């Protein structure tokens, strides 16, 4: 059992930090970037690709660099630290992750190569307008005519769905079950309406009307379990991203407390505020432990263990994200409400990650249903 990164991992962290920090360590740059479509820096995306960052999760044979969840987590932490709006989670982890999990070797090479190089953006169109975050699709349906497949129905919200060059779309199969399909951005019958998410990200409504689509992997196969597994993986990587954001939120808040004056003294003179900052730190440390642990569980590769770890991270992230997100704004006071200042965007982004991957109620229900089946929770 070892919670430390090795030298290579430290170097990766430094490299990513340097690269995204150059662009976003001045918060005004981040604000400007998310104000205009596509909501991120195409240039930085390319650079991340060239540097091999985007290909980290993918096998070398697929055009990636074949690293593991630990490395992917490090990247996510660094992106979260400066709220880099590049679609790493949406495009690489979620959409790319499903192509890697389900696609044929040819599809993997074809899609993941350019994706890893930062030449394309991929989006996962899975959630549907109905409530919930199930792994099944039901409102978008797939039809087959000979070798040709078409999809019809509506997906929303689809993260970065308007910008994406290709969409990975889940759909109800003719014989039941959920299949995954590749849809080109210029496919016929495809309509995409993009908009901003609360944290400055991008999402879209995606309408498909007999839109031509290519089955990912074996045509007609139910891949709901792969979708569930990749959603779990994404929860854990999102946990890493959130961890980076939480660290910055706590540091920004303590920085403000030591610099902002009221009643002639800096705010850290007020014990009630410093105690609350201490509680934020406690939340942060506990979250860090759970995120690192879950990332290691993910690296071990057992899907059932990963599912539980993902729910655990989801629950902790919800608790800590709200605690720290709310307190960070409150301890800033009025300035914390302004878009010009960074702290509110951290709160909004923590919220957005949770909205994507599940809130406390959802994860508590999952974990609660299982408590009777074992004695104590053991980390290993």
């Amino acid at each position, binding site marked *: 059992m070892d919670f430390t990164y090795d030298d290579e991992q430290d170097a990766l962290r430094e490299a990513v930090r340097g690269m995204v920090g150059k662009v976003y360590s001045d918060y005004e740059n981040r604000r400007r970037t998310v104000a205009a479509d596509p909501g991120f820096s195409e240039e930085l995306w390319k650079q991340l690709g060239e540097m091999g960052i985007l290909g980290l999760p993918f096998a070398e044979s697929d055009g990636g660099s074949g690293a593991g969840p630990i490395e992917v987590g490090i990247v996510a932490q660094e992106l979260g630290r400066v709220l880099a709006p590049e679609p790493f989670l949406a495009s690489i982890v979620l959409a790319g992750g499903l192509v890697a999990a389900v696609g044929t070797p040819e599809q993997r090479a074809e899609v993941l190569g350019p994706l890893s190089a930062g030449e394309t953006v991929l989006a996962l169109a899975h*959630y549907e*307008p109905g*409530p*919930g*975050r199930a792994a099944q699709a039901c409102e978008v349906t797939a039809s087959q005519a000979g070798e040709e497949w078409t999809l019809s129905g*509506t997906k*929303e*919200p689809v*993260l970065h769905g308007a910008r994406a060059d290709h969409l990975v779309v889940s759909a109800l199969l003719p014989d039941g079950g959920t299949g995954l399909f590749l849809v080109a951005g210029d496919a016929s019958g495809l309509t995409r*309406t993009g*908009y*901003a*998410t*609360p944290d400055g*990200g991008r*999402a879209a*409504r995606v309408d498909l009307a007999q839109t031509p689509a290519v089955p990912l992997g074996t045509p007609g196969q139910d891949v709901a379990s792969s979708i569930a597994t990749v959603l779990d993986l994404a929860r854990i990587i999102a946990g890493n991203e959130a961890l980076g954001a939480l660290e910055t939120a706590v540091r920004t808040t303590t920085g403000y407390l030591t610099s902002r*004056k*009221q*009643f*002639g003294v800096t705010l850290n003179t*007020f014990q*009630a*505020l410093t105690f609350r900052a201490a509680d934020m730190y406690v939340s942060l440390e506990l979250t860090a432990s759970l995120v690192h642990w879950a990332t290691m569980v993910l690296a071990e590769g057992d899907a059932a263990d990963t599912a539980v770890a993902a729910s655990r991270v989801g629950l902790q992230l919800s608790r800590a994200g*709200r605690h720290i997100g*709310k307190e960070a*704004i*409150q301890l800033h*006071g*009025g300035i*914390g*409400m*302004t*878009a*010009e200042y960074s702290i*509110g*965007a951290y*709160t*909004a982004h923590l*919220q*957005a990650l949770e*909205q*994507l991957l599940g*809130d406390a*109620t959802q994860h*508590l*229900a999952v974990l609660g249903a299982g408590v009777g089946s074992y004695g104590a929770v053991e980390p290993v």
Partner: protein
Amino acid sequence: MRLQLSEEDRAFREELRQFFTTKIPEEIRTTVIEGRELTRDQIVESMRILNAEGLAVPHWPVEWGGRDWTELQRHLWHEELQAAGVPVPLAFNASMIGPVIAHFASQEMKERFLPATANLDIWWSQGFSEPDAGSDLASLRTSAVRDGDHYVVNGQKTWTTLGQYGDWIFTLVRTDPEAKKQAGISMLLIDMTSPGLEVRPIQLIDGGHEVNEVWFTDVRVPVENLVGEPNTGWTMAKFLLGNERVGVAPVGATKRNLARAKELAGAQLENPLVAARFAELENELLALELTALRVVANSADGEPHPASSVLKLKGTELQQAVSELIMDLAGPAALSSGADASSALPEWTHLATPTYLNLRKASIYGGSNEIQRQIIAKTILGL
């Protein structure tokens, strides 16, 4: 002790409910109920309808449009307004500067301003906070220097809510730089079309523009626009902030939102964890409403009851908690904040996260909850 309202109060409430739900345009009330932003015109229209019926400023002196109601009746008025989705009369006019003018100003100033204030012919803005004077309001630096029959005002105010709509602004300015903090402050009314006055929008974290900075550069203000005596502004500010806290717990609106959340929840209500969350919030909200009723029953005329800090503290917490619940009910659809009517997701899900983020202000503005705790500890508990 008696639970039921008296016959008279019941009739009073029924009459208000009738008026509010039939005379205020439904479009305005739906906008409120569904949590969308009101236009300036909608706010003005609604307040004028109320004012025509004598329902805009009931807590003012009778000669200026007030009503000789009991505290309980005022409370019922406020609750029914909110329950019906009627926009509460603009606080800057009805609850802030109106009562200050009525209480402290000359007869001439009252005549000049009060009728227009009650009818929202003048839209008032508030110029109190400054970048370096937030919770520590008395450290404000905007100066008003006497020059003949004018004051020359220089400085910067901030957090001026809806300042983009303002006709006039009531400000706290430093008229005696020598006096110690509170002692050198005056209350000055300033026409916002004055040369040298500039309103700059501040974008908030929900993407909206409801607050502003107001900059004063050599703005000349006639001396007759000073309220009361020079250097007595702090007394008026305390009076005003006390009024601001009363009725600051938006119980009626929170109750309306919580009931609406059940409709939005649909099948999610069958989840025991979701149901328990509703039950918990309902219980706290009921306790808060009852506390508000106890407080109004015991309020001396005009003086804010110390327990009004309890109402502010808990009221804003619950307001925030209900917005959080609604956001959670929306699930991933809460990501759709930037979507327009072309979205396949219902409009309430677009509004859910921005509303949650926007309401973070509730525990900061108008005396932060830290200030309220301080008031409770010092004033009520003697700590």
